[in-house]
């Protein structure tokens, strides 16, 4: 059954909204650890967050299978909304996904289950979008790598279990691996696979 909430809440101005969200994401992935502001442009059905929805509207289309985590899959409205607004097919397994939308990162399966790309084509990997409550209220993480002048910090919460260890493994697979977009209510931060995590500031 098609309800109004499956259809309303797309970008008001698709061309320019998508451009501004993309520039936020590009700025965030080029400078890991920095938070790019993002205006509330999309009104998706819960539990999909407006920021994660805006990223999906900006980057997903019929060429990009999207994987939804259990809490998003549980909502018929979310799947309909993504289908209606982006045309993206749903990926049946995480290894088929170009994008994965994750409303509940704390109970996410291991990152290695998602498409990692191949050594020849490392770009054929999943980009995960985590809906996080905050980018500053969690445990402080220290990052270094391309895009970071010396050291960057982020304190996102919630994160998957054993995230530090998982991210070290993800980095060890470079150039294969997944990229993360952390979508909070008021901003976007990214952790591309090139970013290394450090235990402390020193």
């Amino acid at each position, binding site marked *: 059954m098609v309800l109004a909430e499956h259809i309303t809440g797309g970008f008001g101005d*698709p*061309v*320019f909204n*998508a*451009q*501004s969200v*993309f*520039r936020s*994401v*590009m700025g965030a*992935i*080029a*400078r890991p650890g920095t938070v790019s502001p993002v205006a509330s442009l999309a009104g998706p059905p819960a539990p999909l967050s407006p920021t994660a929805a805006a990223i999906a509207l*900006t*980057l*997903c*289309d019929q*060429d*990009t299978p999207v994987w939804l985590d259990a809490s998003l899959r549980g909502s018929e409205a979310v799947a309909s909304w993504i289908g209606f607004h982006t045309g993206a097919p749903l990926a049946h397994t995480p290894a088929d996904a*170009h994008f994965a939308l994750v409303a509940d990162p704390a109970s996410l399966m291991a990152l290695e289950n998602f498409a990692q790309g*191949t*050594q*020849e*084509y*490392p*770009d054929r*990997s999943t*980009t995960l979008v985590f809906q996080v409550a905050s980018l500053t209220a969690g445990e402080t993480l220290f990052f270094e*790598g*391309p*895009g*970071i*002048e010396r050291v960057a910090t982020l304190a996102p919460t919630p994160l998957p279990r054993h995230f530090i260890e998982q991210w070290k493994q993800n980095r060890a697979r*470079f*150039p294969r691996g997944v*990229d993360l977009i952390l979508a909070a209510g008021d901003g976007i931060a990214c952790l*591309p*696979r*090139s970013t290394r995590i450090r235990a402390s500031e020193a």
Partner: protein
Amino acid sequence: MSALDKDIATYNFAYLDEQTKRMIRRAILKGIAIPGYQVPFASREMPMPYGWGTGGVQVTAAIIGPDDVLKVIDQGADDTTNAVSIRNFFRKVASVETTTETARATIIQTRHRIPELPLTAGQTLVYQVPIPEPLRFLEPRETETRKMHALEEYGLMHVKLYEDIARHGRIATTYAYPVKVEGRYVMDPSPTPKFDNPKMHMSAALQLFGAGREKRIYAIPPFTEVVSLDFEDHPFEVQTFDKPCALCAAENVYLDEVILDDRGGRMFVCSDTDHCEKRQAEGHRGELAGEIA
């Protein structure tokens, strides 16, 4: 601007359709995440011939917004045909402000130079790339070069540089000088003079590379290690010039040779026209400044 031109920008902003922009944007994000890796993308026909910057134009069209200020340079110059045409193209299809001032630009599309003025954090440099594969002239098969990148097997490139030394006594490559990005991928910096290679290292600006005919996009994020390949006993060196710029007396900049007559007369002037004009406005005078201007 005529009414028709205005309509083009509002009818379809920045020339490309939205699905093409999404596809290019996804490739750009992958490129940034894997610095130096060439991401395949579905390059479109553009209203200009291959070799005129179709890759750079597609990258610029996918990232540009109404608040951007665009600068386009061709061999450092703002006033050559290619640069003027591409600036006019984006004024027409995106109604964006254009400039020749390096410091004012948010997006700088370039073919084969990096501006002399150090770039800043808010700026994006978009390169037009003819042959993105640094190993292509050594190994013509794409299947092989892809495998070489996958296995990080770059011995062939060092053999090429060694043969330069054996034949000429020094590394004779002066442009498109191969670099290694973040200790992993060997990358073609596009045919910039090797003079500009050190500017790519730990640059504050994001650098995006678009090759339209070859259908590849790659990137160097800001503050990324970019090392020009060399040998311990033959370290990488940039070109040096005997004389300063003949118009603005600038030293340690890249100079173009300009033939003045048919009796061997010549002058060397800044390749970066914006840099040269700024210096002349500040009162710097080269030895030929009065005679030419």
